[in-house]
């Protein structure tokens, strides 16, 4: 019996391409046996546990300068795929304009793991529990994807197909995520329920974002994303629509939280039962909406 909780990594070939085009071509030519890699924090765990058997890991960190974090006052924020979560957290632009991203990163694992972990990797791993995905969804993230035919854009909202499954094709490499300028008066919260305060995977994660919007009947727009309660990171559209159509107050928030709970389809697992998860979605969505509503009002 091995003394180690997890065995060593199986044999594979580490590939460090010279450019994104070389990387896309290699990945396309070796579809099914090659995988793009950033920090590797999810990949190594799966390979050690015998779930993944890739022959090639293609290191796409920082290829062609994809390790930049840049804010443009007209275009918004661009986070390169190679930007680790600790860098996101200490960025003054993130802290002042997109603090929700910093809060989401802070909830992930530990400082030393976040030196390796990236937001783009968290997204591509496509776990329904991905802690930073909710913030990226409510902030309107758009992915830059490099494939064998060059670049294209993919809105994050249509990216996920199931646990670990995305619409990426062989040869595709996500090189960055971009966020539009945040709307005036916005506030966001990420409420993560774990078995302990820090570092664990979520039992339920609720991201709520809101801002005044004259085009909504209620005068406000709320965005909600739910983690660990469906096969994909979930946007409860009915709850969002309800909040845009009805005068915001205690009762509307309560009804929207119920809609959010109804929209999810959690499973039982070691971290919590489906029934408990659904109840917690209702409570945390209500709590998140109340917090955001209070803060949006204070700013107005």
């Amino acid at each position, binding site marked *: 019996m091995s003394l180690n909780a997890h065995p060593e990594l199986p044999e594979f070939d580490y590939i460090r391409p010279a450019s994104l085009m070389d990387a896309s071509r290699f990945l396309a030519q070796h579809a099914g046996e090659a995988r793009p890699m950033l920090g590797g924090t999810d990949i190594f765990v799966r390979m050690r546990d015998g779930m993944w058997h890739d022959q090639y890991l293609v290191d796409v960190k920082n290829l062609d300068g994809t390790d930049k974090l840049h804010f443009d006052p007209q275009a918004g924020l661009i986070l390169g795929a190679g930007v680790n979560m600790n860098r996101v957290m200490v960025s003054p632009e993130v802290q002042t304009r997109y603090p929700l991203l910093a809060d989401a990163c802070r909830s992930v694992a530990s400082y*030393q793991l976040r030196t390796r972990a990236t937001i783009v990797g968290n997204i591509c791993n496509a776990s329904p529990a991905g802690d930073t995905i909710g913030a990226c969804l409510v902030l309107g993230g758009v992915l830059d994807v490099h494939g064998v035919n060059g670049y294209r854009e993919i809105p994050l909202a249509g990216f996920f197909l199931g646990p670990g499954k995305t619409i990426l094709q062989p040869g595709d490499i996500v090189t960055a995520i971009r966020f539009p300028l945040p709307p005036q008066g916005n506030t966001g919260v990420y409420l993560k329920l774990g078995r302990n305060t820090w570092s664990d995977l979520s039992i339920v994660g609720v991201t709520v974002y809101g801002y005044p919007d004259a085009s909504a009947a209620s005068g406000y727009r709320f965005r909600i994303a739910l983690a660990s309660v469906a096969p994909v990171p979930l946007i409860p559209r009915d709850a969002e629509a309800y909040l845009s159509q009805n005068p915001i107050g205690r009762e509307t928030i309560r009804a929207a939280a119920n809609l959010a709970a109804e929209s999810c389809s959690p499973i039982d697992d070691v971290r919590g039962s489906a029934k408990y998860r659904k109840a917690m979605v209702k409570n945390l969505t209500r709590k998140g909406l109340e917090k955001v509503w209070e803060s949006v009002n204070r700013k107005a």
Partner: protein
Amino acid sequence: MSYHRITLSVNGSVEQLDVPSQMTLLQALRDKLALTGTKNGCNAGECGACTVLLNGEPVNSCMTLAVECDGASVVTVEGLAGNGELDPIQDAIIDEGGVQCGFCTPGVLISSRALLDRNPHPTEAEIREALVGNLCRCTGYVRIVEAVKQVASSR
């Protein structure tokens, strides 16, 4: 299986190694360089016993490939002391009795050193958050936190 020749600085000494693709930084340190101060606890990025500084930032060396460290600078627990003197955090851990079995200690020291480098005067809450990725089975957290506080308040 492909091998890669890498050059890295470990505790100030330049090393050239031939490493297979799947060799982690942790394996390279322990098995190639005999630097066994860095421990293998969980091999999954959870316990922090393998924490080292990579280009000044703490990483789980079990979650980092050696080949990725070509050209990098690594500091392990063996490199904390210099010129015959312990690092202040090592002195403080001894003073406070922040060691029981000692298995988590190398990682705790590295994470604490990194915290004090980026934030010389952390609050207790900041210390506890920074050490979230360093598990101690002996439940000696209070004395570990006291040791970091001792260094934080001494300058």
